């Protein structure tokens, strides 16, 4: 009896029909739908620009890399992969590819290890002049790439400051920028100077998230500072190390300013980077956009492959 007379709309304690939860839910749906749309509106300018300024040009470059011709009169290459097979015979391209890998293999590991050591030293709360050291080592980041390249070029000029200094120490002058090996070395030194402090800042940020108890535990277990650093600190910084490794690899594969301003790619093509060669093919002499796009896709693919390898290695559990 009571069951059948039960009102279909339950009454709230105060006697009003309790429609509110359902009603409110319905209302929320439309409001949240509306705010969801507003949300998409917030993303639109940025997403549109990234698409227009990165994804679309990247796709266009792929098309271009299968084309040949000048200016606006581009047609499909014959055979389609002509620009790519040309890379295999282009000695200059291969030289710049090798140069870029030399920079990558020598500079990035040295830089990241130096940055790790510096960050670990600066993370010591009892260190005197901590702020001063940090500011000094971080300072090169404030200098533009063109500016520092020109300063290094002046210091390493044939009769320049570095050679005068070496002479005072009794060494023979070194033709820094005129020798294929030392020209690369000057670029590596420049990169180390400019970017070590930058990476150090990432490690300092990462070190703040490390539980001091783990370091204390290691100390109590009798581990010295070096063992603590290697077996306690470094493993905990692994995500940061992976990030800086990927960023540095990405940056090294795109080097341009240093190659252009510090060594002008020389002597010959001995210190030229891939991006510098790409610029030359694109905008100097008789521009060849199709071939240049093929070069740019080699850079793109290398960036992707190396990032994937690093993420695989970084993900591996040890």
């Amino acid at each position, binding site marked *: 009896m009571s069951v059948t007379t039960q009102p279909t709309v339950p009454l709230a304690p105060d006697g009003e029909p309790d429609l509110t939860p359902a009603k409110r839910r319905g209302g929320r749906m439309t409001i949240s739908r509306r705010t969801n749309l507003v949300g998409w509106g917030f993303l639109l300018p940025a997403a549109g620009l990234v698409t227009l300024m990165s994804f679309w040009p990247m796709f266009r470059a792929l098309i271009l890399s299968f084309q040949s011709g000048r200016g606006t009169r581009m047609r499909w290459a014959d055979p389609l992969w002509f620009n790519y097979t040309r890379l295999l015979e282009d000695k200059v391209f291969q030289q710049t590819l090798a140069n870029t890998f030399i920079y990558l293999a020598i500079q990035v590991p040295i830089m990241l290890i130096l940055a790790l050591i510096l960050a670990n030293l600066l993370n010591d709360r009892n260190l005197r002049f901590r702020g001063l050291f940090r500011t000094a080592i971080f300072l090169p980041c404030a*200098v533009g790439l063109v500016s520092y390249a020109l300063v290094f070029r002046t210091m390493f000029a044939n009769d320049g400051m570095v050679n005068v200094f070496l002479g005072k120490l009794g060494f023979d002058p070194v033709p820094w920028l005129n020798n294929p090996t030392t020209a690369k070395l000057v670029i590596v030194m420049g990169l180390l100077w400019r970017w070590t402090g930058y990476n150090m800042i990432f490690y300092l940020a990462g070190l703040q998230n490390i539980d001091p108890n783990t370091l204390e535990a290691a100390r109590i277990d009798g581990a010295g500072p070096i063992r603590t650093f290697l077996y306690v600190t470094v493993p905990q910084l692994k995500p940061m190390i992976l990030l800086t490794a990927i960023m540095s690899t990405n940056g090294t594969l795109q080097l341009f300013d240093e190659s252009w301003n510090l060594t002008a790619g020389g002597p010959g093509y001995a210190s030229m980077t891939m991006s510098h060669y790409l610029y030359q093919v694109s905008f100097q002499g008789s521009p060849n956009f199709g071939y240049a796009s093929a070069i740019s896709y080699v850079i793109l693919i290398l960036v992707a492959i190396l990032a994937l390898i690093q993420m695989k290695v970084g993900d591996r559990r040890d």
Partner: protein
Amino acid sequence: MTRTSLRRLPGYIFLTIAAIVSVFPLYFMLVSATNTSREVISSKLTPGGNLINNYNALMASQQSLWVAFRQSTIIAVVTTVLALLICSIAGYGFEVFHSRGKDRLMAVLLLAIMIPFAATMIPLFQMFAGLNMVNSVMAVVLPAVATPFLILLFRQSARNFPHEIIEAARIDGLSEIAIFFKIFIPTMRSAYAAAAVITFMAAWNNFLWPKVILINSQFQTIPMMISNLTAGYVTDFGVLMLAVTIATLPTIFVFLALQRVFAEGITGAIK
């Protein structure tokens, strides 16, 4: 006490060497700006009396120095304002109007970090040439405005923004866009400062893209101008170092004044 100090000694020596090496090229740059080319080459490391002569020679060879300075300032300011506005609206949108679809979009946008500029440079040049925008400020600015890195940075900072404030403002009847402009921007000043410093520096120092798209020398930026100083027959190193100093001092001042903000900017997106 003395034992721990002694144990720290190698660390101090290492840090001191690193600090000297880091600062020395800048000291060399500053001092050389006041010396003659021959003094620079012969490694005179004390201030000289040739600053005025270097300045006059620089003006005589490159009348466009202050024009380039103005051009760089305009480009850096416009880039910074637009980048902060567009990326912060997006970062806020991703966090506050969070949904699965938006997460997917963010993942796609993040892929753009891995696209090397080299791979977009030629089509971008063709695109802006097609729009008759070669030599224009906006052609320099637009590719630098929306960066996934900045969007990420603002999304991270929006994460710390209390949601209750947004709810309260909604109940007060503020529109979503008004909440963003009137409440989010003023409370997130430190995130904006960090983003502004890194964006301004990057725009000020950018070289390759301005070099590609600003063809006429009357539109050249500061980095382009100092780079061209070495293209002559004989480089006057005193003049060159003065020009490099003028190009570098603004960013060094910004850095020294806002070092923590700068550090926050480069690492903020990954916290």
